[in-house]
């Protein structure tokens, strides 16, 4: 079966300190080669802490940044790296900050019309029908159409953002922290809406978040990112319960959980390595309790460990823990 | 620190070259024949040719530029035909006078502007704030040359507190008190606009900073309000004030042209205006390049001060 979405060695390197003429002073590898398959109708969660490259990965996926290497395939076809519009019909993006993702000087109607006009060339009547349909599916009233973004609460604005993504009629949505700017009581509304839309339209989701519990609650599979690379992939119900990579375990142990006593899960340096000057070997080695010489010399590749679980680690944890 | 200064100096080289190119290009636009302008319409062809050769006008533009640049680098800015003396000598002499005037003004407007702005912000909507805002509005709306003229009427003609014009008294002057008496009115007239601009900016920069979280932290620590304003807030506000001081220095230097004319100050601005009206191109070129170069260096100094204040800059 062809996966709905395939990332093949996708990576992104940003030059740093570039001058008008001449070469850059250094390079930051924001995303190190990532290879992942996402099945039709699946929700793949991506978790990681700030600076791990998850947002850059998302921007690569929808064509907002051209990758430095590798490619994105949708339904078995590679996409033109340089054209966001080519991506737009197939894969859409829902932004983290619902307010700043809506142009403050445009009415909701004109925001929703753009993808219909530009990507699908619909005429005015078709657009009006389609907009009504989409609005109903995200539970917004039609009278909102002539209002402006500042008149909406965060939750409503995020529904509009989702509506815009739906309007493009793409089968795959990249959701970049779609609920982290929202209040908890509203978060659940939006998460449930996303689940309902997925069922209704048979969508495929990439759900990016720093919140482990949210990712676990909405995903089929989860990929854990650290320092620009995927360090572990596995089924949502098992990956945090039985992590193979020590970093996944650290994340899971750090999340505040009711009923678990407060302990600092690691006593060591908590800082990410300097991205301009990355250490050789596994980037997690300086923080890792199990690190040995090989970890400091050689960056491990993602390897299959057990059913459906992959981890990039020289000394993976036992499956039982 | 030394490394940073060196880096900034090196980065100024292309800017300085750019300045010479711009000046050269603008001057190359000049219509008509400089030789005719110099010699008048009765010039003989031989004389015109000689002048053209002297000015290098018989060569292609690129070659002329490099000859001109090379000469300037060796300190030869050419000869002013209207004054019949080397351009550099005249420029240096006149620039000294301008520096005294503009420098004094710059100090006045920086200190007064920042203090007024900070007081205004600290007493927002209070009496002091309103008075300062009103004074600033007047200050930035009045043309400096008109203000200078009115000051002459009020303080040199009506009440003979200050001399009408000039830099030194013609007889028996030349000492520092004499200079100060001559300097007072033009320096103040020149400083007024810039003071207003700086005060406005300082006020809004302070208001901006006073809302920030670290001000709340300082208050939560129990730092006395006076120290919150004059230490915490002003220090942070200076980061956005200092670059504007650099820009305002350019405005003060520019305003000096008018003030020098009004007060007959023997500065470089007056020299330039006269040179333009007499079409003394070499003098204009030399003066413009020299002053612009000094301004570039001054702005490097501003950047260095900024980097001393803000540790986040040093890279």
């Amino acid at each position, binding site marked *: 079966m062809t996966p709905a979405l395939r990332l093949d060695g996708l990576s992104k390197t940003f030059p740093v300190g570039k001058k008008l003429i001449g070469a850059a002073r250094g390079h930051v590898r924001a995303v190190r080669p990532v290879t992942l398959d996402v099945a039709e109708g699946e929700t793949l969660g991506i978790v990681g*802490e*700030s600076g791990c490259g998850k947002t850059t990965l998302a921007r690569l996926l929808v*064509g907002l940044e051209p990758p430095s290497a590798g490619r994105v395939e949708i339904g078995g076809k590679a996409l033109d790296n340089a054209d966001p519009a080519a991506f737009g019909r197939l894969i859409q993006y829902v*932004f983290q900050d619902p307010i*700043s*993702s809506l*142009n403050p000087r445009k009415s909701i109607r004109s925001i929703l019309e*753009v993808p219909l006009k530009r*990507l699908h060339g619909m005429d005015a009547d078709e657009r009006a029908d389609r907009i009504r349909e989409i609005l109903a599916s995200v539970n917004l009233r039609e009278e909102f159409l002539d209002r402006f973004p500042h008149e909406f609460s965060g939750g409503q604005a995020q529904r509009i953002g989702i509506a*815009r993504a739906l309007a493009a009629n793409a089968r795959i949505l990249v959701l970049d922290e779609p609920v982290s700017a929202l209040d*908890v009581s*509203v978060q*659940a509304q939006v998460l449930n809406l996303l689940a309902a839309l997925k069922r209704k339209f048979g969508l495929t989701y990439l759900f990016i978040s*720093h919140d482990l*519990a949210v990712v*676990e609650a909405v995903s089929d599979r989860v990929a854990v990112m650290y320092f620009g690379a995927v360090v572990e992939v596995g089924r949502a*119900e098992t990956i945090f*319960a039985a992590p193979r990579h020590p970093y996944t375990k650290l994340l*899971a142990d*750090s*999340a505040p*959980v*009711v009923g678990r006593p407060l302990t600092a*899960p690691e006593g060591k340096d*908590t800082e990410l390595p300097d991205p301009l000057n990355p250490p050789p070997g596994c980037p997690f080695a300086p923080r890792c309790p199990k690190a040995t010489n090989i970890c400091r010399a050689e960056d491990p590749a993602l390897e299959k460990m057990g059913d459906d679980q992959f981890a990039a680690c020289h000394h993976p944890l036992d499956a039982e823990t | 620190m030394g490394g940073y200064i060196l880096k900034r100096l090196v980065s100024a080289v292309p800017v300085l070259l*750019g*300045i010479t190119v*711009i000046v050269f290009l603008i001057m190359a636009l*000049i219509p008509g024949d400089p030789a005719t302008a110099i010699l008048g319409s009765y010039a003989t062809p031989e004389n015109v040719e000689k002048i053209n050769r002297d000015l290098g006008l018989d060569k292609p533009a690129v070659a002329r530029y490099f000859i001109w640049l090379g000469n300037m680098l060796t300190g030869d800015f050419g000869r002013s035909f209207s004054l019949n003396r080397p351009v550099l000598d005249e420029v240096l002499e006149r620039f000294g006078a301008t520096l005294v005037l503009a420098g004094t003004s710059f100090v006045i407007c920086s200190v007064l502007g920042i203090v007024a702005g900070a007081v205004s912000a600290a007493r927002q909507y209070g009496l002091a704030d309103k008075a300062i805002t009103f004074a600033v*509005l007047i200050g930035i709306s*009045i*043309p400096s*040359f*008109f203000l200078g*003229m009115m000051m002459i*009427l009020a303080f040199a003609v009506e009440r003979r507190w200050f001399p009408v014009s000039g830099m030194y008294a013609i007889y028996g002057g030349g000492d520092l008190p004499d200079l100060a008496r001559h300097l007072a009115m033009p320096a103040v007239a020149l400083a007024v606009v810039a003071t207003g601009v700086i005060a406005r900016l300082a006020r*809004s920069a302070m*208001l901006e900073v*006073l*809302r920030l979280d*670290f001000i709340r*932290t300082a208050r*939560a*620590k*129990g730092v006395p309000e006076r120290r*919150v304003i004059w230490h*915490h807030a002003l*220090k942070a506000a200076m*980061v956005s004030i200092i670059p504007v001081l650099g820009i305002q220095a350019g405005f003060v*230097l*520019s305003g000096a042209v008018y003030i020098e*004319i009004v007060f007959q100050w023997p500065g470089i*601005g007056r020299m*330039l*205006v006269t040179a*333009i*009206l007499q079409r003394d191109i070499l003098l*204009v070129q030399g003066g413009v390049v020299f*002053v612009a170069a000094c301004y570039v260096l001054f702005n490097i100094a501003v950047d260095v001060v900024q980097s001393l204040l803000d*540790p986040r800059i040093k890279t």
Partner: protein
Amino acid sequence: MTRFLWLLARNQLALMGGIVLVLVVLVCVLVPVLPLRPPDVTNTADRFLAPFSDGHLLGTDHLGRDLLSRLLWGTRLSLAVGFVAAIAAATLGSAIGIVAGYFGGRTDNIIMRGVDMLMAFPYILLALAIVAALGPGLLNALIAVAAVNIPFFARNIRGITVGIAHKEFVDAARLAGKGHLAILTTEILPNVIPVIVIAMSTTIGWMILETAGLSFLGLGSQPPQADLGSMLGEARAALITNPHTSVVPGVMIFVIVISINLLGDGVRDALDPRLRSGALSRPRPATNVRRESVPQGPGEGVLDIRELETQFHVGKRIYRAVNRVSLTIAPGECLGLIGESGSGKSVTALSVMGLVASPPGVITGGAAFHEGRDLIGAPYRDLRRLRGDRVAYIFQDPLSTLHPLIRVGEQLAEAIRVHHKVPRAELRRRAVELLGAVRIPNAESRVDSYPHEMSGGMRQRVAIAMALANEPEVIIADEPTTALDVTVQAQVLSLLDDLRRERGVAILFITHDFGVVAQMCDRVAVMYGGRIVEEAATADILNAPAHPYTKRLMDCVPELGGGRRKLDAIPGLPPAVDKLPPGCAFAPRCDKVREACRAAPVAMTRAGGRAVRCLYPETDIAKDPA
């Protein structure tokens, strides 16, 4: 647009400037049909007539020309030239700025280097050079003034455009299929235009001054043509003998420029959303207090907040952020205050020491007792002495809450120095000691670091050290770990927990995270719509929440280890605190709501250690053994 005009008209100074300007422009337009003497006809017999002389209302100049006529013709010319120069500079400069800012990268680099080059000249040198090349004349002066102002617009607008081009809605437009041109004209431009208008309205007066200046120098309009600058320039020779010839054009320039500036400021204020909402007000050193009734002391525990009411007065609206909140913290206790954004939890915390930004904040009732005295009514001097000494704060975002230009050691030392006289060397030693206490490695060298040189977790440790500096009885921690990554959060929380147990300091811990509360706090109070709706020991609330809001809020939050599931959402939105319903604030969203809930405010029911503000609680707190 109508809102803009209304705001503009409300600003009296701007209105005044606008009226004067309109009058001047009107007269200028009418000049050709007014019964004026010809402006350029000389009559040496009538030289230097004084104002109000026969037939010459403003007198005559050195060539006997009618000053009134010359003034009006000159004003007409000066205004026209000034406006044209401003529009030309604004259009060209903004176009350059938008292109550079939107495309960024090399395009931006090359354009901005050119702009920098032009800005490397004191502007008049460039203007003089241009006039020198083109020759004196009004049109050339116009070109020179416009040209020297282009870089200012370009740089200003580029900065704004860069900010907008990185906004997410621009990315969204690209994904919706818009090309560069469409994005520039329909997404970016509408957001930049207000800034261009502001920049233009604040510089147009300046440009009129500049063109007048060039004419004054004799480089602008040429005789006999009059503009305001050249009139002033010609009059200068007779300044002392016949000042009126100078005063007349000079005052005119002043009037025009000041009215443009007034109007320009008005335009800026009306267009700038931050100024519009009054956000640029300077917060006072302590929150305003206007209490009608004051609860009597001395209060219990180490901090006793009673019936606290804090409001925000914005225009005619009153936001009741904190609505009669009472909380008591026992010595050494950690009390959690949990709620969503807008529930009033942070405002409660900030009110205690008068740190709510004021304006617009006002404390309208209640008290906060510390050692028998009321902090709310305390004069600033006393309040300041207690701040950071007896009651200390830790705030949310450690990057913005530390002063960026002061070394952390100095900031620590200052916290001590403003309360205690300690010699300098001793201060440094104490700072190092404090950094060590919050487990910062290499405290000895870290003490000289600036905040930006540290990671988020390290900075928050510094903030904790600062709060501990004077060994306070209470620390108020306002979402201290919300901005941190989860692995760092775990460390900071366990550090805070260890320190409070070691030092016996009480903590008021504000958060929105039940997981954090469960791990940190002895007791919890839940806030909703500015009120405490439930209060109990942590375990009781987590095991058997009594208020429907608490229960449903906990159900909303997924917990790690629960696997994939549907979450229970609460329908609707949190209440707006300027439009609170008369009854229970949660009633519109509550599935157990009945008539009584909506009718009148619900009182707090207390039983044992528990309290709940609900008529139909989920758990009977009186029966439930607390």
